[in-house]
Each structure stands twice: as C-alpha cells, then as structure tokens.
C-alpha cells in the first residue's frame, strides 16, 4: 500500500517535471514568435544596415562646345595607380594591413620614381570609409610611370592601373571666366548621405560648370554591395548604370573669343562681342584670366592662393561682376532721351566754349579750347561734354533715367553666368536714400556724360551697343544655345530672348547712329583709330574717371558695331587705367574688327 502510494506520487512528480519542461519550451516558443514573426522586420533592417552598402558611381561629365562644335571642356582619361586593399589584407588588426600597404607604396615610389601622393592616414581613412573600392595611391601619372609599372610590377598582388576621367580644357585660358572650372564635389553631411561608399565626384565650382552643374553632372548610378563582417565585398546585389551628363552648345565662337583675347592682351580690362541680331554672346573676355587646366584634376593650394592674392584679380569676371562708370559711351542715351521726348531735335545746337558754368561751378569740356557750335550728330562725333551738360539740363533727368532703364542700365542682363551685378542707375529716390540729398542739376550734368554714381557692367554695355546697332531690340545675352545628349540630339534649346523693345522714331535712331558712324568714320571723330579701311562702322568712345580725382585713374571705353547697315557684330572694349577711349580702346576695337571681318571674308571665300 505504502509502496503504491509512493509510486503514484512519484508518477505525479514526473508528470509535473515534464510539464515544467514543456512550459519553459513554451516560453522559448513565445520569444521566438515575438522575435521572428512580430519583430522580424526590425531585425531584417538591422541586418541590411550592417551588411549592405551602397556605392555611388558618378556619371561621365557632359562637355561644352562652341557654336562651331569645338570642344571647350572635355574629359580626358587620367591614369591612376590603384591598390585593392582587400587583396592585401593581413589577418589581425587593420593597422597591420595599413602598414603593409604603406610599405608597398614606399617601394613603388622608389621603383616608379614618382613621389608619394598619399599618407598612411589616407589609407586608414580609405579602409574605414570605402574599403570595397580601389584605393588610388597615385592620380594622374604620366606614361613613363605607367610604363615602369607595366615593366616592373605587373603581377604584384593588389596593384592595378585605374583610369579616371579628369576634366580637360583644350584651350586652357580661353573663355576661362565663362566656362568656369570643377572641383571635388562636397560630400553631403553624414546624416543625409545615402551612400556608404562615396566616390569623390567633380562638381562645378564656377562659371557654366557651376551654373549647369546639374545638367553636366548627369545622374550618378549606384551599386548595392553585400559586405562581410570585415567590410570585404562579398557579392554585388544590384547595379544602376550611371547616366552621362548632357552637353552644352554655346553661342560663343572660339575663333572670335581668341581674337578678342589677343586684342586685349594681358592688360586688365574686358571685351565682349555679341551678335546684334539675336543677342548671341560670341566672345567674352575678362583680363587677366587664368589657365583652367590648373584646376584639373585639382588646383594646388599654392596656385590657388596666388590667384586669390593677385592684385589684378584674375578670378573676377569683369564683364559681369565689374561695375564701371561708362563715361561718354553713355551720351547716346541722353541724345535718345531728348529726341524721343521732344526736348531736342537733330538740329538742336549748343556752343561749346570749352567749359560750362552751372551756377558758379565751372565744368570743363575735355577739349579745353572748345568745340564751338555743334549739332547733335557732331556732338557725338566730338563727344562734347558741354553739349551734353546743356542737352541734359534741357531734357531733364526724368527722361534720361527712363531711357537708360529701358536700355538695361541698373538691371541685370540675366546672362547665364554664375555671378552678375546690376550696376547702378542713380535716381532721385536712390540719392535721397543713400546721401540724404535730393537730385540736383549737377547730378544731371554728371550723368549726361556718363559719370557720377552711374555704374555699368561691360555686358550691359554690349547689349546696349547691340540695341543701337539693330535699332531698338535689347536682347538678353544668349550664352547657351542648346543642351544636347550624347547622340547630339537637342534636349532643350534656348531661343533668342528680347529683354526690351525700344520704340524709337526713325529720325531719332538715325541721328544717333549717324553721329556714332562719324565717331569712327569722320577724320576728326574721337574713335577714328578704330576704323578698319573699307568697312562702314559706328561706335562711341568713353573715358571715365574712377577713384579719387588726385589719382587721375581713367577707364578707356569703346562700344562699336559693324557693318553699319546690317550689323553683324557689336563690340565693347573696356581697359582699366587707359589714357582715353579714343587712344586706348579704339585700337583694340580695330584689332578685333579687322580680324573678325578678315576671317568672315576668308569664310566667305571658302
């Protein structure tokens, strides 16, 4: 009896024991359910985060062509020596692998006779940030080093030649300000960086390279790589092929650009050539310039500082970023304002005794002996200041202001460059705001000869000259004609754009144009030195005082267009620290036109 009882209790205990075991298994089962079924996606995310990496592959950058299809910004292959760190992995701490790679680079440096470009620290950064990618120990090495590598080190594990695309500017300094340059694109901050392995990519830093960066850069591709615990590439999961960037077709004519560059030389100044029939920017020179190839693949710190500290400011694009008093080149504006508002006629004449008395203030003409009696055409030919003091006062400031504004003064031309200033067209309101003083007759006199607070950029002057040439269409300068794809198919085109239509009467514009023709064509015209034999052309010189009066610094200007009857080119030349428009700028204009027309003739003959 006792025996049986004991047995049954033992049976019960065995069943309880088994029950407990099963209960504990159920605890395991419910935890598994929680982890695998309910929380599975969280762990899945953790898994992807630690083992899947995205690698960014840049697209080939688009090129830039001039209007004749000459390539101004190209890509060239650059030979790099790559080291695949994965193949040189040493067991144990990474520092051992880094030491090994460092020693290899040291040895290669001796064999290839090229100095080291990377430090051990660079290697360490690479192992941490983009291990599956090739580590570029040397970038852009010459053929000799590549030949030595092929001869001596082929078969060396982990070493390979890697070809990288580098920006190249076949014409070096030409149109440097317009084209701009590229630099290593900034890496976005760590937080929004969707790529674990970032391939440094070129981004536009200035000029069209910067402005059209999104177009030129194209669409980067990417690759999903599964890596193992040490960061080694295990397999590629997916790849999206990068798309190459699109090309830019410019209105610029390289031949004209080079003509203008040669004409202006190294002297600080600017020159612009536009097509007055559509606003095409044919040439744009800001002098001095710089060599774009200094920036590819990367500019040295020394050269960069040199450019930054150069007092002639080679990095500044004077054409769009420089505001200068236009001087006498502004006089046609005053003439147009007076004629259009019936304040004067082509016959309106004033006597120039060599000076003008504004109240008790004596204001001199540049020709101290006096021009005598001049009508409007003659006033332009001789650029008489006294005539314009009196015409300005007779006309009043208001019409001059409106005419100048209609011709684009004081407003950006919206040229597609990365930086443009609007210049300054002063007004009564502006003077009250900045000088706490109202507009006076003296201000009217000053602006009538293009002085005072008035500031214009060379590109504004070019478009103004073009409007005079085509008798009233103020164009927006056209830099880019079209965006094309690799096959040359137009993706987007940019038709000429008119910024303003000036409804001048036929008499008005004829008077001004004829006056401007006399500037060049008449034997005593101020711009006669610009004349090219056998060519009927027109222009206006200007000499503006800048800085303090005591320094006596002068800007030499000339605007011009030709041929007179059906203008093909409008030109502006500005030279800093010149003698006068007629002596400094006019010969440059002549250089430009003679070359332009000679090459046109040649093209015509051919």
């Amino acid at each position: 009896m006792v025996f049986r009882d004991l047995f049954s209790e033992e049976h019960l205990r065995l069943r309880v024991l088994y029950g407990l075991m099963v209960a504990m298994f159920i605890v395991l089962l419910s935890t598994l359910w929680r982890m695998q079924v309910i929380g599975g996606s969280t762990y899945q995310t953790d898994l992807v985060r630690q083992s899947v990496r995205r690698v960014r592959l840049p697209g080939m950058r688009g090129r830039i062509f001039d209007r004749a299809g000459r390539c101004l910004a190209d890509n060239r292959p650059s030979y790099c020596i790559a080291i695949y760190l994965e193949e040189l992995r040493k067991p144990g701490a990474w520092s051992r692998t880094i030491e090994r790679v460092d020693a290899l680079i040291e040895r290669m440096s001796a064999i290839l006779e090229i100095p080291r470009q990377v430090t051990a620290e660079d290697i360490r950064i690479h192992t941490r940030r983009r291990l599956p990618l090739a580590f570029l120990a040397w970038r852009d090495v010459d053929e000799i080093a590549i030949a030595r590598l092929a001869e001596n080190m082929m078969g060396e594990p982990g070493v390979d030649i890697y070809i990288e695309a580098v920006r190249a500017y076949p014409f070096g300094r030409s149109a440097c300000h317009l084209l701009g340059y590229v630099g290593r694109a900034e890496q976005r901050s760590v937080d929004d960086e969707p790529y674990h392995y970032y391939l440094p990519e070129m981004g536009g830093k200035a000029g069209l390279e910067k402005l059209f960066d999104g177009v030129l850069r194209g669409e980067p591709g990417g690759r999903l790589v599964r890596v193992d615990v040490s960061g080694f590439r295990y397999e590629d999961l997916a790849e999206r092929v990068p798309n190459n960037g699109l090309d830019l077709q410019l209105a610029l004519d390289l031949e004209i650009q080079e003509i203008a560059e040669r004409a202006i030389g190294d002297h600080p100044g600017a020159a612009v050539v536009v097509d007055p029939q559509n606003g095409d920017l044919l040439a744009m020179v800001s002098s001095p310039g710089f060599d774009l190839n200094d920036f590819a693949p990367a500019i040295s710190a020394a050269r960069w500082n040199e450019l930054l500290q150069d007092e002639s400011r080679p990095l500044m694009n004077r054409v769009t970023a420089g505001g200068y008093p236009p001087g006498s080149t502004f006089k046609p504006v005053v003439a147009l304002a007076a004629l259009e508002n019936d304040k004067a006629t082509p016959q309106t004449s004033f006597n120039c005794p060599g000076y003008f008395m504004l109240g008790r203030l004596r204001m001199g003409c540049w020709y101290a002996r006096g021009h005598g009696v001049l009508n409007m055409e003659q006033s332009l030919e001789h650029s008489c200041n006294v005539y314009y003091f009196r015409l300005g006062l007779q006309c009043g400031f208001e019409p001059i202001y409106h005419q100048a504004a209609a011709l684009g003064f004081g407003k950006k031309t919206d040229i597609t460059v990365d930086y443009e200033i609007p210049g300054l067209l002063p007004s009564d309101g502006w003077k009250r705001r900045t000088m706490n003083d109202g507009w006076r007759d003296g201000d009217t006199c000053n602006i009538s000869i293009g002085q005072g607070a008035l500031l214009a950029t060379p590109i504004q002057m070019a478009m103004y000259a073009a409007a005079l040439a085509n008798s009233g269409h103020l164009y927006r300068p056209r830099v880019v004609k079209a965006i094309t794809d690799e096959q040359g198919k137009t993706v987007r085109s940019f038709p000429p754009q008119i910024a303003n239509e000036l409804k001048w009467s036929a008499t008005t514009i004829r008077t001004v144009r004829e006056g401007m023709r006399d500037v060049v064509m008449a034997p005593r015209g101020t711009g006669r030195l610009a004349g090219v034999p056998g060519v009927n052309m027109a222009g206006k010189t200007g000499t503006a005082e800048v800085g303090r009066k005591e320094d006596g610094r002068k800007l030499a200007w000339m605007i011009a267009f030709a041929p007179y009857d059906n203008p093909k080119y409008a030109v502006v030349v500005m030279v800093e620290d010149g003698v006068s428009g007629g002596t400094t700028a006019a010969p440059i204009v002549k250089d430009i036109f003679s070359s332009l027309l000679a090459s046109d003739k040649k093209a015509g003959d051919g």
Partner: protein
Amino acid sequence: MNWNHVRAILARMDWIMIFAVVALLVIGVMFIYSAGYRGEDAPVASFYERQMLWALVGGFFFISTAFMDYRRLRDAAWWLYFVAMLLLVLVLLVGKEMYGARRWLTLFGLQVQPSEFAKLAALVVVARFLGRPGRQLDDPVKIFQVLSIVGVPFLLIVKEPDLGTAAMLIPVAFMMMFAAGVPLKHMLILAGIGLLLMPFGWFLLGNYQKERVLVFLNPNRDPLGAGWNKIQSGIAVGSGGFSGKGYLKGTQNVLGFLPRTVAPTDFIYSVIAEETGFVGSAILLFLYALLLWSCVRAALVARDRFGRLLAVGVGSLLFCHAFVNMAMTIGLLPITGLPLPLISYGGSFMVAIMIGLGIVQSVYVRRYHE
C-alpha cells in the same frame, strides 16, 4: 546473447526516441554544413564531415548501452565516478589549454572533454544514492549528501574554468531529487538559501563572465566586444522571420557577423533559426519535447527507482543544455558556452549524451511488466 534475445530487445525499444535522435542528428549535420558554407565558390568548412563521424560513434555507444542492462551500472557507479574525478584532476594538471581554459585531455590521439562524462557519472551516482529502497528522503541531511556528490565534480569543473558546464549539475541534481520524492519544503528552503547567496557568487566570477552578465542586462554596453555575439545572434534569429531565408541562404554566418568559431558550436541554433525561421525553430523545439517525453515515459515505466532516476537524470541533463543554449541564442539568458545536444559540433558531449540516451533506452527496454 543470441539472435532471439536481440530481436526481443529491439522489439521493446522506444522507436519514437530513436526517431527523434536521428532527426536531430541529421538536422545537426545539415546545419553544421550550412554554418561552414562560404558561398558558391568557396570550399565548405569540413566540420560537418567530422560531425557525421561523431554521430556514428555516438550511435554505436547508444546501441551498445541500450543492449547493456542498466542495473549493472548500480555496482559500477562509484567506480565510474572515481575514474571521472580522476580525469578531471588530470585535466587540471596536464590538460590542453585553449581559449584560456583547460578543458581537454588528449586520450589515444583524441581531444576529450572529461567534464561531459563526469556529469554523466555524477548523475548515475546520484540515481544510485537516491534510488536505494528504504532511504528516508525527508531527512534534510540526504539533500546535503546529494549536493556533495555533485559538488566535487562541480568544483573541479569550475576550476578549469567552465562555469556553464559545472552549473548544469545543480538543476540536474534538483530535478532528480524532485523526481525521487524529496520533500518540496526542503528543496524550496535550499533553493531560497541558494538565491540569497547568489550575490556573493558575483565575486567568484571571472571578468569575462561578469562582462557576459552585464551584457545580458544591456547588450549595447559593448556592442563590438562582449555584446557582439548576442546582438548578431538576435539579428540572425529575428531576420529569419516566419519561414526563414532558406537552407544555405542565411547571411549572418556566411558574412561572418556570427563569428565562424561559434556558428557551428554554441550558436548553431541561431543558424537554424535564420535559415528556417519560426517554423524550423518550433520543429526543433518539438523534437526536443518528444525526446524528453521518451525519457519521462521511460521513467514512468521503469522497473525500479534506480532506472527511473537514471532516465530522469539524463532527461534533465538534456533539457538543461537544450534550454540554456536556445535561451542564450535568443537572448533570454546570458551567453554561456553550452552546446545544443545532438546538434552542436563536438565529439565529447555527443558521445556522452548518446550514452545517456542509451541508458534511458536500456531502462525502457527492461521496463516493468504489467
């Protein structure tokens, strides 16, 4: 032993147990293969081949033990115990040191872990001690006697050090005492005292053990060091989802996030859970539950108390290893280096547990006749 005798024994065997054992062994080899898989082009680590050999050796011991009458162990119990203790002492003196611990003895060219066999020997002695008819189990002194029997191997194994393996002796002893009928009151008091003493045990732990406990409490404490295995095992198990990624498709061990040294051994369950998901993990639990039921059934039908307690002891040993290993894999318990019975790569524990199951089979075959 004639052929009829063999037939009679085979007929009386527990085939459910044999089914469960074979199933677990096959799963073990399969996933040790998977844990050694490195992608299509790379050679598979050869652990699985040796595991197959261990399974065959284990099978031989299982059958041999099943045919042997377990009652002969009663007389041999103390001898086995002394030999086992001697080997444990020997390990401490001339054992091979690996990973900072002396756990292996080289016997006849084989690496043997005597601690695995010592656990078996200890439970045979406990079964004999508690199984003697007429013992007054409500005498508290008996409990201390049982604890002394397991205390000697416990201390020797702790000295190696291999706290995880040593610690298994305690719950096994308790389960056997419970099954034998030791009054619950005594056991609860003892367990209470044990719990109260636990905080002092903290000071006996080695630094790496303390670290494991701290990491268990807060895995992000040292995610690249001590917390690494726990986190990676969690990711492997969790990312398996409901139905798993498929055989050989798990990435955690292929990519090495689950360290290659532990993937086929202590963390094999994590490989299984990643590749077979909740379904596979649950099937594995079911197979263990089936195997445990075989042990309990053998205990229920055993012809004497010694046999019953042997079956309970082996079942408890199996349960404790399986539970602690799986609970560790899924993050319910701190990391301990305990193998998953019949599945984890390794020879000593495989042979020991197969001998144990052979004993249970022997008990079942010689069960009480109605």
